């Protein structure tokens, strides 16, 4: 057996400890941090993203798609040529599938003359600041897979979400909050759960961190009961001091990353509660968003928090508002429950755009509004009226970050069933968002299982120039 094994460790360090000591501590402590800001592929138009996600599939036909023929032919069957060969959710169910006229009136607004329904009086006032795309198209018609598709570009579990990709591509400019934050409102979590903001094949460093409305805003954020903040600081300092000693002894860079992580964790303990405490906002701001109770969880409060997060340098903020699945069941119809959801989000979504604009943040920030799919022109008549899931044409809007305000993009047929002009696939949306952030969707890749994964998948995707300034 090799005599090397029997040299003692002490001897080893007496020899090379000197060498290590001569490496400057500064170089050992190099910020090798995966979240450090990174260079873009080309100059960026925007730095941040706020994605307002209406989970369940909002009905474009009661919000943005004005289809007079649908009113005229209400109750008549849809021509066979439209539905032949299509698959729908609840295929086996025998709900009627006749055309259903919109449940609400529409008017034209703004200089661009966008049609917006009377359910959305506040959104109607910002149409000249947003790009409305009525021809969005996705691939999957069940909620969880379609949500995954919108967020990760794939219906399979385990792919990185858009927020993770963006944080991976750009790093974070915030050293006391996570780079990718998720906020939730509505009666329950979105279908699919944490995988919607997961990091998939990317390191967990990039996964979305949900800011919670109950208990700690971040899991395990509070110092344990009975421990004062002075004690916590002492603990962090002692951990740092002992870890530094180990770093010098072993030369392992991971220890320096861990030391940084403890510092950031400690800062988060202060900065996250401070972020969530909106008492310092003016009454005018609260009124703009429609926030009545500053403690109560609501979509409106989340919109305001989104602005506060962007102000603090957070890269990607995603809001989920649930219960947009209006099939026509007893608690999910188009006459009563859809307008309630619209009231929940209309004022605050518009306020967010206005507020970002007046604070000079809108130029740098892309705001996205939409869900995982839209709803069919045919009605579903259950206890009351609703519509089924529809993947061929649905509406999303975009604001800020170099998107051209007042744009109406894409044209659907007279029922709003499919695109007749300028279809925009989910992957095109992804490519466009990345493009505005200075990232080429074909170059933003990660190698796993022998493949270069990317957000936009393997089929070609295009940047939708028509909605860009």
């Amino acid at each position: 057996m090799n005599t090397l094994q029997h040299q003692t460790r002490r001897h080893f360090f007496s020899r090379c400890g000197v060498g290590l000591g001569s490496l400057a501590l500064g170089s050992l402590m190099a910020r090798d941090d995966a979240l450090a800001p990174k260079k873009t592929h080309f100059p960026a138009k925007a730095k941040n993203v706020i994605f307002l996600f209406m989970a369940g599939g909002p009905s474009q036909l009661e919000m943005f798609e004005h289809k007079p023929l649908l009113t005229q032919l209400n109750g008549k069957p849809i021509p066979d040529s439209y539905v032949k060969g299509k698959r729908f959710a609840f295929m086996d169910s025998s709900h009627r599938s006749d055309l259903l006229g919109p449940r609400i009136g529409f008017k034209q607004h703004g200089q661009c003359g966008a049609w917006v329904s009377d359910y959305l009086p506040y959104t109607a006032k910002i149409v000249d600041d947003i790009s409305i795309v009525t021809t969005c198209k996705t691939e999957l018609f069940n909620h969880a897979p379609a949500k995954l598709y919108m967020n990760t570009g794939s219906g399979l579990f385990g792919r990185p979400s858009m927020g993770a990709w963006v944080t991976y591509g750009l790093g974070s400019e915030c050293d006391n909050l996570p780079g990718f934050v998720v906020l939730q409102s509505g009666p329950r979590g979105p279908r699919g759960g944490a995988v919607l903001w997961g990091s998939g094949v990317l390191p967990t460093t990039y996964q979305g961190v949900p800011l919670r409305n109950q208990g700690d805003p971040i899991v395990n954020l509070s110092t344990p009961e009975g421990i004062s903040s002075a004690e916590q600081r002492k603990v962090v300092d002692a951990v740092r001091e002992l870890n530094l000693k180990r770093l010098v002894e072993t030369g392992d860079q991971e220890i320096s990353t861990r030391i940084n992580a403890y510092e950031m964790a400690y800062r988060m303990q202060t900065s996250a509660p401070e972020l969530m405490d909106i008492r310092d906002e003016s009454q005018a701001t609260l009124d703009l968003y429609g926030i009545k109770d500053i403690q109560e969880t609501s979509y409106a409060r989340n919109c305001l928090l989104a602005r506060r997060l962007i102000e603090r340098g957070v890269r990607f903020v995603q809001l989920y508002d649930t219960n947009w699945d209006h099939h026509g069941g007893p608690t999910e119809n188009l006459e009563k429950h859809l307008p309630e959801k619209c009231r929940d989000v209309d004022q605050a979504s518009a306020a967010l755009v206005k507020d970002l604009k007046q604070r000079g943040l809108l130029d740098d920030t892309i705001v996205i509004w939409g869900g995982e799919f839209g709803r069919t022109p045919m009605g579903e008549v259950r206890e009351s009226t609703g519509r089924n899931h529809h993947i061929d044409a649905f509406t999303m809007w975009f604001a800020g970050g170099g998107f051209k305000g007042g744009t109406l993009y894409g044209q659907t047929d007279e029922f709003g069933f499919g695109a007749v002009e300028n279809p925009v696939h989910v992957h095109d949306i992804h490519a466009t968002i990345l493009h505005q952030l200075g990232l080429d969707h074909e170059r933003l890749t990660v190698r796993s299982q022998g493949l270069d994964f990317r957000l936009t998948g393997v089929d070609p995707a295009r940047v939708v120039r028509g909605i860009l300034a």
Partner: protein
Amino acid sequence: MQRSVLIFTFTALASCLHAAGPISFNRDIRPILSENCLACHGFDPKHREGGLRLDTFEGATADREGARGIVPGDLQKSDAWQRIISEDKDEVMPPPKSHKPPLNAKQRELLKAWIEQGAPYEAHWAFIPPQAPKLSADGTLPIDQFIQAELNKHGLKPSPEADPATLIRRVSLDLIGLPPSPSEVDAFVQAYRKATPAASDELYRALVERLLSSQHYGERWGRWWLDQARYADSNGYSIDAPRQIWKFRDWVIQALNQDMPFDQFTIEQLAGDLLPKATVNQKIATGFHRNTQINQEGGIDKEQFRIDSIFDRVATTGSVWLGLTIGCAQCHDHKFDPISQKEYYQMFAFLNNQDEPEMKVFDASLDIKALNAELKTVEAKLKSLIQERYDEVLAWEKEMASGFRAKLAGPVKKALSKTVAKRSLEDNLALFGVFAPPSDPLRILNDQYQQLNTVLNKGTTTLVLKELPKPRKTTVFIKGDFTRPDVEVQPGTPSVLHSIPTKSGQLNRLDLAQWIMSPKNPLTSRVIVNRIWQQYFGRGLVETENDFGLQGSLPSHPELLDWLALELMKQKWSLKALHRTIVQSHTYRQSSATTPEMHEKDPQNYLLGRQTRLRLDAEIVRDVCLAASGLLSPKVGGPPVYPPIPDGVMGQGQVKRVWKVSEGADRYRRALYTFVYRASPPPSLTVFDAPEGFSTCTRRVRSNTPLQALTLMNDRGFFEFATALQQIIQSQGVEAAFKRCTARDPRPDELAVLKELDALNAARVLLNLDETVTRE
């Protein structure tokens, strides 16, 4: 924040390390072709540009209307070469639209020399069976011979052995996933320091044997296997209801503890139900492929998700045993590896023929057959007795006052509402139950019947595979879309690998499992030794542990890989023997500290001139803190448990789930027993990169994030460990607590830092040290 986000750097390193010798196709040329050319000029004919393929000699040299991609020995006439060196952006290869940069000077030089030397091709290294390498007889262990030979080439030397305290902690964590107790450390360190080299080897050997025979060995390596089996305790997707399949988890632990040979281990999991006279345990083992998700969402097409689960099984089988990305051929022929879409569906056909039942598993002490027979006898006796005495029921019914009828219990009323002919055994038992006296033989017989029923209904269930009597028809699906069936296919294996023996009748899963474990298979043994190596050194000898195909990286030490692969088979697939071989080596036992010279010459430690410090796996982070604080329950196996988790975690999914915190010892079980809901897994595990079980995980990433810091500092569970460790500090001193966490004595300067704090906060610091959660 991660050791290596992009791990595929070895190819580049390999070529610069080896470029001195003659050109080798597999080492020097194939990586260049694979990375730059084969996506458009490879195996997949549908995406083959200009009809040129460069993955075979025949293809590269074929005459295509006068042009030839490569003309051996003639650069001028080699079309491919001319395109590579072209400065015309419409001509140059790879084309700018591929986003691949032009080949660099080094790559060009290699290609040029290779074409000049006649452009010889070689079969892909991983498809050639392992070759026994030459060993020297100087007494150095084989692993160390291969590692030291490479180090020598680069003017480096292995590090000295780690000190004995580090060594015992390292090998304990690696073999059983638990730290050594302070007394184990003391005994080992004292004896080791005093011993002669030969005697210290013997001490170490004895330590390794003790650990390998511990029940906890199966837990630590069981978790390694459960990652690959994508094990979790719920159905996944959005509804994510709980499921029972922990019997499979326990089967894995037991099989490893018994050192079941890996070939048998494989065959039982893939096809245990098809073995002659399959035992209950062999059926439980088939739970491996039942760890797929089940979608319970409304409005779905069940067939779509059944097909999805089979896609997952094909991909998992490919990754886990073959180290091939077979799943890539689901929608089209594989772009890089010689696997056609048709061959993919031939593999699919093996896995398409089963029912997916729940199986009841009883306590091993019960004779279920006898109990069932007894139940039948009792049931028959009851039936005939009832028939004989049915007059009694009729008489009772006749005499009954109408007011009385209304007061009868529900089941009795229900029985009475039926005609006599329609009454079931249960109905009649209910009726007799109203009027028969306590001593009535019918009542006594009924008690016996009910008891038997209770016992037989009790057992735990587990998910298993069960072959259908008649196989399902399997077709190719166009673009992987189950609504677009194409030609029918029969079960079969990829033609690039060893052939599968034919038989009369259709091949089944058992044939597939035996084919995988055939000694002729060039892949499986290499793939498994590599994946075990990866656990010890943080990286496999083949860095792309799930891709041994053409896109994968080359082995850093090909001869060592082959030697280990052959050794595993020679040791009759004993995994314990393999562990023994690895941990005995000096390569394993050397210090993990780095020196400026090593840091400069081999920063990523590809050459293994030192050990690597590795942050512990998520479960072991918990287990180490449990053990250090003295709370650990050593119980092995059994139903999953529910340790404390942060408030609100279970409300994040679509359906809120109840999490009733376990009491008593079950609160302090090892983390692999914690119940895992795929859609809302325990945060303290996921922040440390535990997989959620959505798909097979053959290598965990090791992230290093602020959320980990928050978990160790603030999580309710970890704080509870700290309060237990505080008591140890109060009774035995902070030195003892330090040793429980790190297996070493604190130095005075370290002690001084800790002494500044009260016992509770000193305990918290100890559980937060990098060293505590790291294997050094």
